[in-house]
């Protein structure tokens, strides 16, 4: 009977490139936006110096936009040389005065208080972080803000135990620390910088990134509410020039910088010959090594988390996939299907997996890399999801048919773009993974424990995750090999970066 062999018409529009799996046409989730009713954003934010909000001396301000809508949300003061000088003087005064006269236990008390207040105001901070930086609320709510609080809790605990942290040595505080942080994890990077500095008895002048200063100034309000002595924490906003004033100020004892390798090199040059201590946490081009004996579906999930977390704006992002030849097709096909179920859109929607690209500048950078990839002859795959018309959004992107010599494989893109290469043996994978000027992070997927240790110990990178990726904890040191940075943050190592040992 011919009827029985007729194929049934299905109403489904397959979104999967290699099967009829369909992740879009039926039962779409309604918008589930996080409420913003409880949020107040001032029209203008001043500098936070010596415990007070003060106008910038030149009276200049710059606008800050919401990258998901391109709307201006507020404006920030531009700190010039005299403002930075004022901030450093306030920090010095506090360091020579009240802050150093406090007992270590009392210092710890302030840090515990900051940590608790961050937890209490977690919802406010996470919504602000998503509005200002474009990251999905799921991440700011579940990662950025809780981890920031955890860092303060962790280093609060160390404040009165420094004598036990370095057996046989006496730790001494450094003085005034200049800290410059990036735009990808604004509040979390602030916590990474401020918490250990204060725990060790230093005072700080911190400059947030110009595109994401909002939570730093909200944090300044919190610092005031917490009753932290004036001058201990100073926050100056501005762009590169402001940062350079901090780096070159002669009354600063330590520079801590997180950002691009390019700027890191400039900073290191200007610090040469000075007695300033420094830590630099710079770029990366992390390799994800997937062996054929890995749990494949879970490896795919790990890859998704490694490259698409925070729109790929992660210095330790796993942006180069190295997959063993025997499972390469399988992994790539599954990865493509998985990319189809990623939800790109409104950062404030609780179901959003990938939010907005942080700024127009970064949007252009990523797009130029997409063009470079095509020019280099790579095959490109982008998920077919709908993306909002307004704002800066980029579809999750996969480059296959690329090689070690391509720019998209060598250079940090800092966006949701993954390159895929194959390998045959563990040695080849290690060679390819290490063949980069960077060395911040990497991942290994295999079911075999001994292989994890063998490969992990041969990777020249500061962090190696096994069968997972992008896991952070305040107790664990973080930092780079080679051009990915100098020094470590987090854990006991992070404490050592803020003391002189005698």
């Amino acid at each position, binding site marked *: 009977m011919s009827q029985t062999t007729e194929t049934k018409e*299905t109403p489904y529009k397959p*979104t999967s490139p290699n099967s009829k*799996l*369909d*992740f879009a046409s039926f*039962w779409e989730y*309604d918008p589930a936006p996080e409420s913003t009713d409880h949020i107040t954003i001032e029209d203008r934010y001043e500098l936070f110096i010596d415990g007070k909000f003060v106008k910038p001396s030149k009276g200049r301000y710059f606008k800050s936009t919401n990258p998901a809508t391109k709307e201006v949300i507020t404006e920030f003061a531009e700190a010039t040389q005299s403002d930075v000088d004022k901030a450093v003087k306030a920090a010095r005064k506090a360091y020579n005065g009240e802050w150093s006269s406090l007992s270590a236990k009392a210092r710890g008390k302030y840090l515990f208080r900051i940590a608790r207040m961050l937890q209490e105001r977690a919802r406010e901070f996470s919504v602000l972080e998503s509005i200002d930086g474009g990251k999905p609320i*799921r991440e700011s709510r579940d990662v950025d803000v809780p981890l920031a609080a955890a860092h303060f809790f962790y280093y609060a605990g160390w404040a009165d135990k420094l004598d036990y942290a370095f057996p046989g040595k006496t730790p001494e505080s450094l003085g005034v620390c200049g800290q410059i942080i990036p735009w990808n994890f604004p509040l979390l990077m602030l916590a990474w910088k401020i918490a250990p500095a204060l725990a060790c008895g230093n005072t700080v002048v911190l400059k947030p990134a110009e595109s994401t200063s909002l939570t730093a100034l909200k944090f300044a309000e919190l610092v005031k509410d917490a009753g932290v002595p004036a001058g201990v924490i100073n926050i100056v906003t501005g762009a590169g020039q402001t940062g350079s004033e901090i780096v070159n100020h002669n009354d600063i004892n330590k520079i801590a910088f997180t950002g691009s390798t390019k700027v890191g090199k400039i900073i290191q040059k200007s610090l040469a010959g000075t007695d300033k201590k420094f830590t630099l946490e710079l770029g990366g081009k992390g390799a994800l090594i997937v062996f054929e004996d890995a*749990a494949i579906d*879970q490896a795919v999930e790990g890859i998704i988390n490694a490259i698409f977390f925070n729109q790929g704006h992660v210095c330790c992002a796993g942006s180069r996939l190295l997959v063993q030849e025997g499972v390469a097709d399988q992994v790539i096909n599954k990865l493509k299907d998985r990319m189809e179920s990623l939800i790109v859109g409104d950062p404030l929607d609780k179901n959003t997996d990938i939010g907005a690209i942080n700024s127009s500048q970064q949007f252009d950078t990523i797009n130029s890399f997409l063009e470079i990839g095509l020019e280099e002859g790579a095959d490109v795959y982008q998920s077919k999801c709908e993306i909002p018309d307004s704002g800066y959004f980029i579809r999750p992107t996969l480059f296959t048919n690329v090689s070690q010599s391509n720019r998209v494989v060598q250079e940090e893109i800092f966006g949701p773009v993954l390159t895929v290469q194959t390998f045959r043996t563990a040695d080849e994978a290690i060679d390819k993974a290490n063949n980069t000027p960077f060395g911040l992070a990497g991942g290994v997927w295999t079911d075999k424990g001994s292989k994890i240790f063998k490969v992990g110990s041969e990777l020249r990178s500061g962090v190696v995750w096994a069968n997972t990726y992008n896991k952070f904890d305040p107790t664990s040191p973080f930092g780079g090999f080679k051009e990915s940075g100098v020094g470590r943050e987090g854990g006991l190592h992070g404490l050592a970066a803020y003391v002189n040992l005698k």
Partner: protein
Amino acid sequence: MSLTDYSITKPIDQVAIEERVSRLNKRSIKKESKVQALKMALSMMDLTTLEGKDSDGKVIQLCQKAKLPYASMPDLPKVAAVCVYPTMVRIAKKHVSGSGIHVASVATAFPSGMAPLSVRIDDTKFAVSEGADEVDMVISRGAFLSGEYNKVFDEIAAIKEACGDAHLKVILETGELLTYENVRKASDIAMEAGGDFIKTSTGKISPAATQPVTLVMLEAIRDYYYKTGKMIGMKPAGGIRTAKQALQYLVLVKETLGAAWLNNQYFRFGASSLANDVLMQIVKQETGQYQSPDYFSVD
């Protein structure tokens, strides 16, 4: 197609599976998408009574509920099937006739499966001859755990043959298999031996259905589909009592297998008390208020 060597274990990463589930549980299902999902859940239900004290009266009540879950809202979808013991198939069949609701029967010496294969085959044939549209069999967990994978395979194939046109759901009883890797292996055996559905549990062993186990099975179904193009159904059963849980399961299905599996041809809930909570939530969505549980029939 070459025969699978079941002594080779496919690795499953326990931590990553559980992490994936907890991430999917963060999906926020609101407004119209929630109503749609609740109605979908109702239409996917295998309304179940599997007790030694089951009687004609009890089964008749269950059938009434299946046909008209909530009299005040007659437009609600009917459930997919009623699930009973083989001796109750005839009465169930009679009382759902004409409604489109299937009668599913557990068979094969449910729930232990501890009877000679010939008895289990007869049990199956009896259920089908009484009119069962679907047969829910149990695998021999003892044989599976002692590594006799081919024996388990052959038994499933024999039961499939005995089913004739009836759909076969293969219960793995994951609570007795203990590891995700065993769940994966049993899923592969069940699909390759001819099961139309794979099902987590009998409901008689704790834990019954869990979301991580369901995800492992859904991924097995996906791999089988990639390999053969055949769509196998999934039925988590036991322990699913709230509408919220049901929505979480549907999210797992949607984001693992996609829309083609989001219907009662390929996905079922095996549950007895879930229906009332789903109904209560539907009424809440329509009226904005929670009704007293006493407004919903206890069957």
